[in-house]
């Protein structure tokens, strides 16, 4: 059993961390959330039922629930928690990229989305989950997922319109 859990961890913990980070805006909280989710599988009263839910879907749902609890507890949304320490510690090319103006603008725009739209967008765009998977992870109808995703993308297009030229320039620079 431990091998199966280890495999589950290796397969999914990075994506779960990214999702938790983008929901909460905090790498430290994301780490705690992912840890809690995996260790929660070891509890006898774990709600995980392999017969009903694929593990990936279950884990993303669990991370989302944990993130919402933490967000509610601290009394604010994950909007624009400028977790500079996380990024400075990371020191990776990705972290450097996030420091760019575009990245910060995207982060702010996503944080300003309604939570129900934000989580759908994060799963669909950053984790490449299908509408059906998202519906299962968030306990929604596929139609609701689709409409939330459409509204989220529409809102982001509007919010990020001033940066569209930057994107066009980047695209033009590509070989």
């Amino acid at each position, binding site marked *: 059993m431990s091998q199966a*859990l*280890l495999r589950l961890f290796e397969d999914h913990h990075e994506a779960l961390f990214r999702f938790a980070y*983008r929901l909460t805006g905090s790498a430290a909280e994301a780490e705690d959330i992912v840890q809690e989710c995996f260790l929660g599988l070891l509890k006898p*009263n774990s709600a995980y039922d392999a017969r009903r839910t694929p593990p990936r879907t279950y884990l993303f749902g669990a991370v989302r629930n944990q993130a919402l609890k933490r967000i509610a507890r601290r009394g604010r949304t994950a909007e624009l928690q400028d977790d500079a320490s996380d990024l400075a510690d990371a020191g*990776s090319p990705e972290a450097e990229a*996030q420091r760019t103006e*575009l*990245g910060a603008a995207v982060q702010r725009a*996503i944080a300003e989305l309604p939570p129900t739209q934000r989580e759908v967008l994060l799963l669909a765009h*950053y984790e490449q989950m299908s509408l059906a998977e998202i519906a299962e992870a968030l306990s929604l109808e596929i139609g609701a997922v689709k409409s939330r995703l459409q509204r989220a993308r529409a809102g982001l297009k509007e919010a990020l319109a001033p940066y569209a030229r930057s994107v066009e320039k980047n695209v033009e620079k590509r070989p």
Partner: protein
Amino acid sequence: MNDSELNELLDTWKAPPTPASLRDAVRPKLMASAPVPRANYGKWLIAAAVAMGALAVGASLTQDANLGGETGYWGNGIYVLRMRIVHPALARLKWGFSGGLSTGMQWKDGCLVGSVYLYSPITHTHYGYSWSARPVDAKRYLLSIGPLDPSVLREDGPISSLPHPPHPTIVSAGSKLDIDLAASDGQRVYDHIELSDKPPALLPAAALPNFSIVLTHPQLFVNGQAEGDSAGVAQATGRTARVDVPGRGEFVLTLDAQGDSRFTPDGAVDGDRIRFHSGDSQFVIQCSDPIAAKDGLPVYVYFRPDASIERVRFSSGGSIKGGPEQ
């Protein structure tokens, strides 16, 4: 802004790399985990059951099964063990219910001689051989395996020739050989023979198939009087046992007559002794070890009169079902 441009913008927001501390914190706990998510219990139990079943089936297809055998003393410090084995173990379902006979051993014309066979009540065929062991010197014998002597048969039916008759060979303590009685369709019934300079380990009754009779150092008492001992057979095991009684005939004993009407429940197993009666006579076979895996089992007896029998002899074998008187 079109969808591609939006996607391009969204991709500029990078998440930090997963901290190594997450792996360090979680992996050891998962590796040490014994608890299983509740919903997985059934799956894992089923998997375990399937694995155990597969192992059992695999074992039955690859391992041997013991049908019984004999141990005895040839003299000159040489002991012999003969075990009848079926391969694969699953074939015991076919061969384990066969009858058969071992005549034990006797001296004849300067040789130890005997015959053993397996009798199939289905095909009414005999599978066996007669053997002789002629002393070469103080420690060696010339062992010859030949066609089954038809005079020892107790049932009608043909004799199947040995699939791989061995050549005469010099044997001594430490010699081992296998003699095939039947080999076909991936199944093999054979006698494994070992010679040693020490008494072979005797098989406990519990190690043999259900309803096996194990006669270890048997002695026969008729109406309270000692009639004779095992005459060189230290142990005879099998689904049937046979005792020859001088002036009377042969008694074939079994704990499971399988509906064979020739056998009547005339006795019982009581630890290391079997008590049975025939006519007005009481018979007791006293052994040195337990005779069956459990006590209190009824003993079914088939008596075949034969006034020509001159001495007590214990052996394994004796057919169930398909005999001429059935």
